[in-house]
Protein backbone atom coordinates (compact mmCIF):
# COMPACT_ATOMS: atom_id res chain seq x y z
CA UNK A 1 0.00 0.00 0.00
CA UNK A 2 1.18 3.51 -0.76
CA UNK A 3 1.76 5.78 2.26
CA UNK A 4 -1.15 7.85 3.54
CA UNK A 5 -2.12 9.99 6.47
CA UNK A 6 -4.40 8.27 8.99
CA UNK A 7 -6.30 10.62 11.29
CA UNK A 8 -8.50 9.62 14.21
CA UNK A 9 -10.86 12.48 15.11
CA UNK A 10 -12.75 12.36 18.42
CA UNK A 11 -15.99 13.96 17.21
CA UNK A 12 -18.27 13.95 14.16
CA UNK A 13 -17.63 17.66 13.53
CA UNK A 14 -13.91 17.10 13.55
CA UNK A 15 -14.28 14.12 11.21
CA UNK A 16 -16.38 16.10 8.71
CA UNK A 17 -13.83 18.93 8.75
CA UNK A 18 -11.08 16.44 7.86
CA UNK A 19 -12.94 15.20 4.76
CA UNK A 20 -12.36 17.02 1.49
CA UNK A 21 -15.23 17.26 -1.00
CA UNK A 22 -12.83 17.95 -3.86
CA UNK A 23 -10.35 15.13 -3.23
CA UNK A 24 -11.49 11.56 -3.85
CA UNK A 25 -8.25 10.37 -2.21
CA UNK A 26 -9.62 11.49 1.17
CA UNK A 27 -12.06 8.95 2.57
CA UNK A 28 -13.60 7.88 5.88
CA UNK A 29 -12.64 4.40 7.13
CA UNK A 30 -14.81 2.19 9.35
CA UNK A 31 -13.55 -1.37 9.80
CA UNK A 32 -11.55 -1.04 6.58
CA UNK A 33 -12.09 -4.64 5.42
CA UNK A 34 -13.17 -3.63 1.91
CA UNK A 35 -11.04 -0.50 1.64
CA UNK A 36 -7.89 -2.36 2.62
CA UNK A 37 -8.34 -4.88 -0.21
CA UNK A 38 -8.76 -2.04 -2.72
CA UNK A 39 -5.67 -0.36 -1.32
CA UNK A 40 -3.59 -3.54 -1.44
CA UNK A 41 -4.64 -4.04 -5.06
CA UNK A 42 -3.56 -0.50 -5.89
CA UNK A 43 -7.13 0.30 -6.92
CA UNK A 44 -7.40 3.00 -4.27
CA UNK A 45 -4.44 5.11 -3.16
CA UNK A 46 -5.64 7.36 -0.36
CA UNK A 47 -3.99 10.61 0.62
CA UNK A 48 -5.82 10.71 3.94
CA UNK A 49 -8.06 8.22 5.74
CA UNK A 50 -10.37 9.58 8.42
CA UNK A 51 -10.94 6.81 10.97
CA UNK A 52 -14.37 6.88 12.62
CA UNK A 53 -13.20 4.66 15.49
CA UNK A 54 -13.01 7.47 18.04
CA UNK A 55 -16.43 8.99 17.38
CA UNK A 56 -18.00 7.47 20.45
CA UNK A 57 -21.27 5.87 21.47
CA UNK A 58 -23.52 7.90 19.13
CA UNK A 59 -22.20 5.88 16.23
CA UNK A 60 -21.77 2.47 17.89
CA UNK A 61 -25.17 1.63 19.41
CA UNK A 62 -28.14 -0.53 18.48
CA UNK A 63 -31.37 1.05 19.77
CA UNK A 64 -34.95 -0.11 19.48
CA UNK A 65 -37.67 2.54 19.72
CA UNK A 66 -40.98 2.00 21.53
CA UNK A 67 -42.64 1.39 18.16
CA UNK A 68 -40.09 -1.27 17.20
CA UNK A 69 -38.04 0.88 14.82
CA UNK A 70 -34.28 0.33 14.95
CA UNK A 71 -31.48 2.86 14.92
CA UNK A 72 -28.09 1.31 14.30
CA UNK A 73 -24.86 3.31 14.54
CA UNK A 74 -22.70 3.27 11.43
CA UNK A 75 -19.74 1.77 13.33
CA UNK A 76 -21.72 -1.24 14.57
CA UNK A 77 -19.82 -4.25 13.30
CA UNK A 78 -21.61 -6.88 11.21
CA UNK A 79 -20.78 -9.54 13.80
CA UNK A 80 -22.43 -7.44 16.51
CA UNK A 81 -25.57 -7.12 14.39
CA UNK A 82 -25.60 -10.85 13.73
CA UNK A 83 -25.38 -11.69 17.44
CA UNK A 84 -27.58 -8.86 18.76
CA UNK A 85 -30.69 -10.18 20.60
CA UNK A 86 -32.51 -6.98 19.57
CA UNK A 87 -31.80 -7.58 15.86
CA UNK A 88 -32.63 -11.27 16.16
CA UNK A 89 -36.02 -10.39 17.57
CA UNK A 90 -36.93 -7.20 15.68
CA UNK A 91 -35.41 -7.95 12.24
CA UNK A 92 -34.28 -11.59 12.24
CA UNK A 93 -33.75 -11.58 8.46
CA UNK A 94 -30.67 -9.39 9.02
CA UNK A 95 -29.06 -11.88 11.38
CA UNK A 96 -29.95 -14.77 9.04
CA UNK A 97 -28.43 -12.93 6.08
CA UNK A 98 -25.19 -12.19 7.89
CA UNK A 99 -24.45 -15.84 8.66
CA UNK A 100 -23.39 -16.40 5.05
CA UNK A 101 -22.00 -12.89 4.50
CA UNK A 102 -18.20 -13.13 4.15
CA UNK A 103 -16.97 -14.98 7.27
CA UNK A 104 -16.84 -14.59 11.05
CA UNK A 105 -13.37 -12.99 11.18
CA UNK A 106 -14.33 -10.34 8.62
CA UNK A 107 -17.77 -9.73 10.18
CA UNK A 108 -16.03 -9.04 13.49
CA UNK A 109 -14.31 -6.02 11.90
CA UNK A 110 -16.51 -4.79 9.02
CA UNK A 111 -19.06 -2.09 9.93
CA UNK A 112 -22.60 -1.55 8.66
CA UNK A 113 -21.85 2.03 7.59
CA UNK A 114 -18.77 0.97 5.65
CA UNK A 115 -20.62 -1.94 4.08
CA UNK A 116 -23.27 0.42 2.69
CA UNK A 117 -20.92 3.25 1.70
CA UNK A 118 -18.72 0.80 -0.21
CA UNK A 119 -21.40 0.60 -2.91
CA UNK A 120 -20.43 -2.86 -4.13
CA UNK A 121 -23.45 -4.40 -5.89
CA UNK A 122 -22.41 -7.92 -4.79
CA UNK A 123 -23.42 -7.40 -1.19
CA UNK A 124 -26.16 -9.21 0.71
CA UNK A 125 -27.39 -6.45 3.00
CA UNK A 126 -28.52 -3.75 0.50
CA UNK A 127 -31.44 -5.77 -0.94
CA UNK A 128 -32.43 -6.88 2.57
CA UNK A 129 -32.37 -3.32 3.92
CA UNK A 130 -34.25 -2.04 0.85
CA UNK A 131 -36.93 -4.67 1.45
CA UNK A 132 -37.17 -3.54 5.08
CA UNK A 133 -37.58 0.11 3.99
CA UNK A 134 -34.36 1.23 5.70
CA UNK A 135 -32.75 4.64 5.42
CA UNK A 136 -29.25 5.84 6.22
CA UNK A 137 -28.65 9.07 8.10
CA UNK A 138 -25.81 11.00 6.45
CA UNK A 139 -24.02 13.99 7.95
CA UNK A 140 -22.05 16.70 6.16
CA UNK A 141 -20.95 20.23 7.11
CA UNK A 142 -24.27 21.50 5.73
CA UNK A 143 -26.32 19.27 8.02
CA UNK A 144 -27.99 15.90 8.20
CA UNK A 145 -30.20 14.12 5.69
CA UNK A 146 -31.86 10.75 5.30
CA UNK A 147 -31.32 8.67 2.20
CA UNK A 148 -33.39 5.56 1.48
CA UNK A 149 -31.02 2.62 1.01
CA UNK A 150 -32.55 2.06 -2.44
CA UNK A 151 -31.30 5.55 -3.43
CA UNK A 152 -27.91 5.33 -1.74
CA UNK A 153 -25.96 3.55 -4.45
CA UNK A 154 -26.07 5.20 -7.87
CA UNK A 155 -23.82 2.91 -9.89
CA UNK A 156 -20.92 0.49 -9.47
CA UNK A 157 -19.03 1.65 -6.32
CA UNK A 158 -20.64 5.10 -6.67
CA UNK A 159 -22.95 6.40 -3.96
CA UNK A 160 -25.14 9.48 -3.50
CA UNK A 161 -22.88 10.57 -0.63
CA UNK A 162 -20.93 13.78 -1.09
CA UNK A 163 -17.17 13.86 -0.67
CA UNK A 164 -17.57 15.52 2.72
CA UNK A 165 -20.54 13.44 3.82
CA UNK A 166 -20.59 10.23 5.83
CA UNK A 167 -23.14 7.73 7.07
CA UNK A 168 -23.72 8.09 10.82
CA UNK A 169 -26.54 5.61 11.33
CA UNK A 170 -29.07 3.29 9.77
CA UNK A 171 -32.79 3.60 10.50
CA UNK A 172 -35.06 0.59 10.02
CA UNK A 173 -38.79 1.17 10.43
CA UNK A 174 -40.75 -1.16 12.68
CA UNK A 175 -41.09 -4.64 11.23
CA UNK A 176 -43.88 -5.64 13.63
CA UNK A 177 -46.54 -7.62 11.74
CA UNK A 178 -44.22 -7.94 8.76
CA UNK A 179 -42.43 -11.05 7.52
CA UNK A 180 -39.24 -11.14 5.50
CA UNK A 181 -36.86 -13.55 3.81
CA UNK A 182 -33.59 -13.34 1.92
CA UNK A 183 -32.21 -15.91 -0.48
CA UNK A 184 -28.65 -15.77 -1.72
CA UNK A 185 -27.74 -17.70 -4.85
CA UNK A 186 -24.11 -18.63 -5.36
CA UNK A 187 -23.08 -20.13 -8.66
CA UNK A 188 -19.67 -21.67 -8.00
CA UNK A 189 -19.37 -22.68 -4.34
CA UNK A 190 -21.46 -22.22 -1.21
CA UNK A 191 -19.17 -19.52 0.15
CA UNK A 192 -18.94 -17.57 -3.11
CA UNK A 193 -20.12 -14.00 -3.58
CA UNK A 194 -23.77 -13.92 -4.66
CA UNK A 195 -24.74 -14.27 -8.31
CA UNK A 196 -28.10 -13.00 -7.08
CA UNK A 197 -29.68 -11.96 -3.81
CA UNK A 198 -33.45 -11.64 -3.41
CA UNK A 199 -35.13 -10.10 -0.38
CA UNK A 200 -38.85 -9.85 0.22
CA UNK A 201 -40.80 -8.21 3.02
CA UNK A 202 -44.57 -8.06 3.40
CA UNK A 203 -47.50 -7.93 5.75
CA UNK A 204 -50.43 -10.33 5.81
CA UNK A 205 -53.86 -8.96 6.78
CA UNK A 206 -57.09 -10.94 6.54
CA UNK A 207 -55.25 -13.65 4.60
CA UNK A 208 -54.13 -11.09 1.98
CA UNK A 209 -50.64 -9.82 1.21
CA UNK A 210 -50.21 -6.11 1.96
CA UNK A 211 -47.44 -3.66 1.13
CA UNK A 212 -44.92 -6.12 -0.28
CA UNK A 213 -41.39 -4.99 -1.03
CA UNK A 214 -39.25 -7.09 -3.36
CA UNK A 215 -35.59 -6.18 -3.82
CA UNK A 216 -32.71 -7.79 -5.66
CA UNK A 217 -28.96 -7.36 -5.55
CA UNK A 218 -25.87 -8.74 -7.32
CA UNK A 219 -27.63 -9.21 -10.67
CA UNK A 220 -28.21 -5.55 -11.48
CA UNK A 221 -25.87 -2.56 -11.45
CA UNK A 222 -27.18 -1.57 -8.03
CA UNK A 223 -29.52 -3.26 -5.57
CA UNK A 224 -33.09 -2.20 -6.39
CA UNK A 225 -36.79 -2.69 -5.79
CA UNK A 226 -38.98 -4.36 -8.39
CA UNK A 227 -42.20 -2.29 -8.26
CA UNK A 228 -44.04 -4.14 -11.04
CA UNK A 229 -43.57 -7.46 -9.30
CA UNK A 230 -44.71 -5.87 -6.03
CA UNK A 231 -47.84 -4.51 -7.74
CA UNK A 232 -48.55 -7.90 -9.31
CA UNK A 233 -48.32 -9.61 -5.92
CA UNK A 234 -50.60 -7.03 -4.29
CA UNK A 235 -53.03 -7.56 -7.15
CA UNK A 236 -53.27 -11.26 -6.36
CA UNK A 237 -50.70 -12.77 -8.73
CA UNK A 238 -49.36 -16.20 -7.76
CA UNK A 239 -45.84 -16.43 -6.39
CA UNK A 240 -44.72 -17.95 -9.68
CA UNK A 241 -46.29 -15.18 -11.76
CA UNK A 242 -44.78 -12.60 -9.41
CA UNK A 243 -41.41 -14.20 -10.09
CA UNK A 244 -42.06 -14.04 -13.85
CA UNK A 245 -42.94 -10.36 -13.54
CA UNK A 246 -39.73 -9.76 -11.56
CA UNK A 247 -37.62 -11.54 -14.17
CA UNK A 248 -39.20 -9.48 -16.98
CA UNK A 249 -38.76 -6.23 -15.10
CA UNK A 250 -35.25 -6.47 -13.62
CA UNK A 251 -32.47 -4.79 -15.67
CA UNK A 252 -30.22 -7.82 -15.22
CA UNK A 253 -26.58 -7.68 -16.28
CA UNK A 254 -24.15 -10.56 -16.56
CA UNK A 255 -20.83 -10.87 -14.73
CA UNK A 256 -18.37 -13.66 -13.91
CA UNK A 257 -20.95 -15.17 -11.55
CA UNK A 258 -23.33 -15.79 -14.43
CA UNK A 259 -24.65 -14.46 -17.73
CA UNK A 260 -27.60 -12.07 -17.88
CA UNK A 261 -29.77 -14.80 -19.41
CA UNK A 262 -28.90 -17.20 -16.58
CA UNK A 263 -29.47 -14.59 -13.91
CA UNK A 264 -32.83 -13.63 -15.38
CA UNK A 265 -34.00 -17.21 -14.92
CA UNK A 266 -32.61 -17.15 -11.38
CA UNK A 267 -34.57 -13.98 -10.56
CA UNK A 268 -37.89 -15.61 -11.47
CA UNK A 269 -37.25 -18.81 -9.54
CA UNK A 270 -35.69 -17.09 -6.53
CA UNK A 271 -38.41 -14.47 -6.08
CA UNK A 272 -40.93 -17.30 -5.97
CA UNK A 273 -38.82 -19.20 -3.42
CA UNK A 274 -38.26 -16.10 -1.28
CA UNK A 275 -42.02 -15.49 -1.13
CA UNK A 276 -42.59 -19.12 -0.19
CA UNK A 277 -40.01 -18.84 2.58
CA UNK A 278 -41.37 -15.56 3.95
CA UNK A 279 -44.90 -16.94 3.96
CA UNK A 280 -44.12 -20.43 5.30
CA UNK A 281 -46.98 -21.53 7.53
CA UNK A 282 -49.22 -18.58 6.61
CA UNK A 283 -52.57 -19.07 4.92
CA UNK A 284 -53.25 -16.78 1.99
CA UNK A 285 -56.70 -16.43 0.39
CA UNK A 286 -57.24 -17.51 -3.21
Amino acid at each position, binding site marked *: *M*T*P*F*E*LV*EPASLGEALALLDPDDPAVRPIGG*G*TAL*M*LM*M*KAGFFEPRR*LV*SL*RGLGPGITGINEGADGALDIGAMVRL*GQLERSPVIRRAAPVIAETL*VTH*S*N*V*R*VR*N*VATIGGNLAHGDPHMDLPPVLIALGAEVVAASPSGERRIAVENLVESYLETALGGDELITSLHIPSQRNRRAAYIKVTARSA*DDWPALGVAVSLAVENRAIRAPRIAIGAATETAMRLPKAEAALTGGASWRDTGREAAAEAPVIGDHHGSAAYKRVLVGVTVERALRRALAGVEIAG
Partner: protein
Amino acid sequence: MQKTVSLTVNGKPATATVEGRTLLVQLLRETLGLTGTHVGCDTSQCGACVVHVDGEAVKSCTLLAVQAEGRDVKTIEGVANGDDLHPMQEAFRDNHALQCGFCTPGMIMSALDLVKNNPDPSEREIREYLEGNLCRCTGYHNIVLAIKAGAEAMRGSKAAAE
Protein backbone atom coordinates in the same frame (compact mmCIF):
# COMPACT_ATOMS: atom_id res chain seq x y z
CA MET B 1 3.62 9.55 8.66
CA GLN B 2 4.76 7.89 11.88
CA LYS B 3 2.43 7.09 14.77
CA THR B 4 3.01 5.51 18.15
CA VAL B 5 0.77 2.57 18.96
CA SER B 6 0.35 1.16 22.45
CA LEU B 7 -1.46 -2.10 22.90
CA THR B 8 -1.43 -5.29 24.95
CA VAL B 9 -0.02 -8.38 23.25
CA ASN B 10 -0.41 -11.73 24.98
CA GLY B 11 -0.94 -9.98 28.29
CA LYS B 12 2.10 -7.73 28.05
CA PRO B 13 2.14 -4.03 27.15
CA ALA B 14 3.78 -3.22 23.81
CA THR B 15 4.55 0.12 22.21
CA ALA B 16 5.79 0.64 18.67
CA THR B 17 6.22 3.37 16.12
CA VAL B 18 4.40 2.51 12.90
CA GLU B 19 3.24 4.12 9.69
CA GLY B 20 -0.44 4.70 9.01
CA ARG B 21 -0.31 1.88 6.45
CA THR B 22 1.38 -0.66 8.76
CA LEU B 23 -0.80 -3.75 9.15
CA LEU B 24 -1.36 -5.34 12.54
CA VAL B 25 0.27 -8.54 11.27
CA GLN B 26 3.39 -6.56 10.26
CA LEU B 27 3.57 -5.02 13.72
CA LEU B 28 3.28 -8.47 15.31
CA ARG B 29 5.73 -10.27 13.04
CA GLU B 30 8.27 -7.63 12.05
CA THR B 31 8.38 -5.28 15.05
CA LEU B 32 7.50 -7.61 17.93
CA GLY B 33 9.05 -10.75 16.40
CA LEU B 34 5.91 -12.84 16.94
CA THR B 35 6.17 -14.89 13.75
CA GLY B 36 3.62 -17.53 14.77
CA THR B 37 0.93 -15.47 13.04
CA HIS B 38 1.29 -16.19 9.33
CA VAL B 39 0.49 -14.28 6.17
CA GLY B 40 -0.96 -16.49 3.47
CA CYS B 41 -3.09 -14.70 0.90
CA ASP B 42 -2.83 -11.13 2.25
CA THR B 43 -6.37 -10.55 0.95
CA SER B 44 -8.66 -11.80 3.75
CA GLN B 45 -9.33 -15.16 2.12
CA CYS B 46 -7.17 -17.70 3.94
CA GLY B 47 -7.24 -17.03 7.68
CA ALA B 48 -3.56 -17.85 8.37
CA CYS B 49 -3.26 -14.44 10.06
CA VAL B 50 -6.14 -14.82 12.53
CA VAL B 51 -5.50 -13.33 15.98
CA HIS B 52 -7.86 -12.21 18.74
CA VAL B 53 -8.49 -8.51 19.32
CA ASP B 54 -10.44 -7.79 22.50
CA GLY B 55 -11.40 -11.46 22.56
CA GLU B 56 -12.73 -11.71 19.00
CA ALA B 57 -11.08 -13.46 16.06
CA VAL B 58 -10.02 -11.08 13.29
CA LYS B 59 -7.75 -11.19 10.24
CA SER B 60 -4.63 -9.26 11.18
CA CYS B 61 -3.58 -8.77 7.54
CA THR B 62 -6.57 -6.53 6.93
CA LEU B 63 -6.42 -4.47 10.10
CA LEU B 64 -4.17 -1.46 10.42
CA ALA B 65 -1.84 -1.52 13.42
CA VAL B 66 -3.29 1.86 14.42
CA GLN B 67 -6.74 0.27 14.64
CA ALA B 68 -5.39 -1.92 17.48
CA GLU B 69 -4.40 1.10 19.59
CA GLY B 70 -5.32 0.47 23.23
CA ARG B 71 -6.68 -3.00 22.50
CA ASP B 72 -5.89 -6.45 23.81
CA VAL B 73 -4.31 -8.69 21.17
CA LYS B 74 -3.74 -12.41 21.57
CA THR B 75 -1.63 -14.43 19.13
CA ILE B 76 -0.83 -18.14 18.91
CA GLU B 77 2.24 -17.47 21.10
CA GLY B 78 -0.10 -16.51 23.94
CA VAL B 79 -2.15 -19.70 23.85
CA ALA B 80 0.10 -22.27 25.58
CA ASN B 81 0.90 -22.04 29.27
CA GLY B 82 4.70 -22.09 29.18
CA ASP B 83 5.72 -25.52 27.90
CA ASP B 84 2.23 -26.93 28.46
CA LEU B 85 0.22 -26.89 25.25
CA HIS B 86 -3.34 -25.61 25.40
CA PRO B 87 -5.92 -28.44 25.15
CA MET B 88 -6.85 -27.20 21.66
CA GLN B 89 -3.20 -27.40 20.57
CA GLU B 90 -2.96 -30.90 22.09
CA ALA B 91 -6.07 -31.90 20.18
CA PHE B 92 -4.58 -30.70 16.88
CA ARG B 93 -1.45 -32.77 17.56
CA ASP B 94 -3.35 -35.86 18.73
CA ASN B 95 -5.76 -35.80 15.77
CA HIS B 96 -3.11 -35.23 13.11
CA ALA B 97 -4.89 -31.98 12.22
CA LEU B 98 -1.87 -30.47 10.52
CA GLN B 99 0.56 -31.47 7.84
CA CYS B 100 2.64 -28.50 6.71
CA GLY B 101 1.32 -26.44 9.65
CA PHE B 102 1.10 -23.14 7.83
CA CYS B 103 -2.62 -22.66 8.49
CA THR B 104 -2.51 -24.10 12.01
CA PRO B 105 -2.04 -20.90 14.06
CA GLY B 106 -5.05 -19.32 12.32
CA MET B 107 -7.06 -22.53 12.66
CA ILE B 108 -6.38 -22.70 16.39
CA MET B 109 -7.18 -19.03 16.98
CA SER B 110 -10.45 -19.46 15.06
CA ALA B 111 -11.22 -22.68 16.94
CA LEU B 112 -10.74 -20.96 20.30
CA ASP B 113 -13.04 -18.12 19.21
CA LEU B 114 -15.71 -20.65 18.22
CA VAL B 115 -15.47 -22.63 21.46
CA LYS B 116 -15.60 -19.49 23.57
CA ASN B 117 -19.08 -18.73 22.20
CA ASN B 118 -20.15 -22.31 21.61
CA PRO B 119 -18.51 -24.77 24.06
CA ASP B 120 -19.97 -27.87 22.37
CA PRO B 121 -20.09 -27.19 18.62
CA SER B 122 -21.52 -29.76 16.22
CA GLU B 123 -19.51 -30.93 13.23
CA ARG B 124 -21.69 -28.74 11.00
CA GLU B 125 -21.17 -25.69 13.20
CA ILE B 126 -17.41 -26.26 13.14
CA ARG B 127 -17.36 -26.59 9.35
CA GLU B 128 -19.48 -23.47 8.88
CA TYR B 129 -17.33 -21.53 11.31
CA LEU B 130 -14.15 -22.49 9.45
CA GLU B 131 -15.30 -20.72 6.31
CA GLY B 132 -12.49 -18.27 5.68
CA ASN B 133 -9.77 -20.50 7.16
CA LEU B 134 -8.13 -22.42 4.32
CA CYS B 135 -6.02 -25.58 4.62
CA ARG B 136 -4.35 -27.01 1.52
CA CYS B 137 -3.11 -30.26 3.12
CA THR B 138 -5.56 -32.01 5.40
CA GLY B 139 -8.88 -31.84 3.58
CA TYR B 140 -10.20 -30.36 6.87
CA HIS B 141 -11.49 -33.67 8.22
CA ASN B 142 -8.93 -34.02 10.99
CA ILE B 143 -9.13 -30.32 11.80
CA VAL B 144 -12.84 -30.73 12.47
CA LEU B 145 -12.14 -33.81 14.63
CA ALA B 146 -9.45 -31.90 16.52
CA ILE B 147 -11.71 -28.94 17.26
CA LYS B 148 -14.42 -31.27 18.53
CA ALA B 149 -11.87 -33.06 20.75
CA GLY B 150 -10.31 -29.78 21.86
CA ALA B 151 -13.70 -28.37 22.80
CA GLU B 152 -14.43 -31.53 24.79
CA ALA B 153 -11.08 -31.30 26.59
CA MET B 154 -11.72 -27.63 27.37
CA ARG B 155 -15.14 -28.47 28.82
CA GLY B 156 -13.47 -31.19 30.91
CA SER B 157 -10.74 -28.94 32.28
CA LYS B 158 -13.31 -26.24 33.02
CA ALA B 159 -15.47 -28.75 34.90
CA ALA B 160 -12.40 -30.01 36.82
CA ALA B 161 -11.50 -26.45 37.81
CA GLU B 162 -14.99 -25.74 39.20
